């Protein structure tokens, strides 16, 4: 018991091989139980539709992309909503046990210095838009798509890493 407690409150990040095996196990179990993999932007898209339902109901209903999701009035009623809620709970639990919860604006050193809020916002917009073009994100199409050996999954990962490498060259590290 004390051993388990020690592991759970371990402050160092987990060895990547072990983390990868555990992530692979969760991914495999997800495929066995649900027939599909893990995701994220399936939820944020539904969340956008849900917010739109209240903020701009007419425009959301008429929208070609989001309209279908709000037709029955419950855009969040989907497995992916529970899965992302689970991600939040699991991450909170892990960070809490490892005493890693700090309210902070992180990433200034490598991602824009005092412009950090702008890089976070702009990066989010690019990722949100891109995930809709590809119909998936790093989790849904990259990770899950590659696990079923799909061409789309590997193609996504290829350009994801190539452009990520290139884009990060334009960001200067703050000394």
């Amino acid at each position, binding site marked *: 018991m004390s051993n388990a407690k020690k592991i759970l409150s371990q402050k160092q990040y987990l060895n990547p091989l072990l983390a990868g095996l555990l992530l692979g196990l969760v991914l495999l179990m997800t495929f066995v139980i649900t027939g599909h993999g893990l995701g994220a932007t399936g939820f944020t898209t539904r969340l956008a539709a849900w917010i739109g339902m209240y903020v701009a109901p007419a425009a959301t209903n008429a929208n070609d992309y989001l309209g279908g999701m709000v037709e029955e009035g419950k855009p969040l009623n989907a497995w992916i909503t529970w899965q992302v809620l689970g*991600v939040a709970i699991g991450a909170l639990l892990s960070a809490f046990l490892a005493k890693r919860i700090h309210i902070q604006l992180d990433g200034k050193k490598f991602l824009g210095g005092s412009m950090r809020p702008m*890089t976070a916002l702009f990066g989010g917009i690019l990722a949100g838009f891109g995930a809709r073009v590809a119909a998936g994100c790093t989790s849904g199409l990259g990770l899950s798509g590659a696990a*079923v050996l799909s061409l789309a999954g590997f193609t996504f990962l290829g350009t994801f890493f190539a452009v990520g490498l290139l884009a990060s060259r334009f*960001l200067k590290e703050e000394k």
Partner: protein
Amino acid sequence: MTEILSGLLLGAGFGFVLERAGFGNPNKLTGQFRLTDWSVFKVMFTAIVFAAVGLMVLEQFGFVDAGNLFVPPAFLGAAALGGALVGAGFAIGGYCPGTSVVGLMSGRIDAAIFLLGLLLGTVLFSSIYPSIEFLTTLGEYAKADALPDAFNISSLSIDIGMVIAAVGVFVLGSWMESKSKGPVSSQV
């Protein structure tokens, strides 16, 4: 009910492991693109290979029906363009969509801003959808959706190739980490 439970539990496992790996930390995540911290490659490759081999074995024993697994359609142009945009967003913003949830739960305000950006990007996409709908079906490869069918190779051969590639990633990554500042630790 079982659907809610499976979503919550599998999601919790996903989130817990991502946080443990340090993937709520934008400095660590983007270290992959600066080539000083190879954790993202190492974790992703290991997970993909484990799940791919696991699925192959379970199919052999009849525990999984390959026909029931979701394989994303081969709109390769759309996947390439979307991958490029998500990659740029990751390098600039510090997160991908899933890891931004992990960053937010460990108290990171920049992760909350990234999530707001995700919603804005989605709204932007939706608002101009009729004129860009063609992007989502760009470059369809009609012959096959998955590697084994496309190249007429067995899943076993592909899995063996992926294991070798993963070992290569660990060797190359660890070497490059030793030549630079190395992995970002949790004590920053």
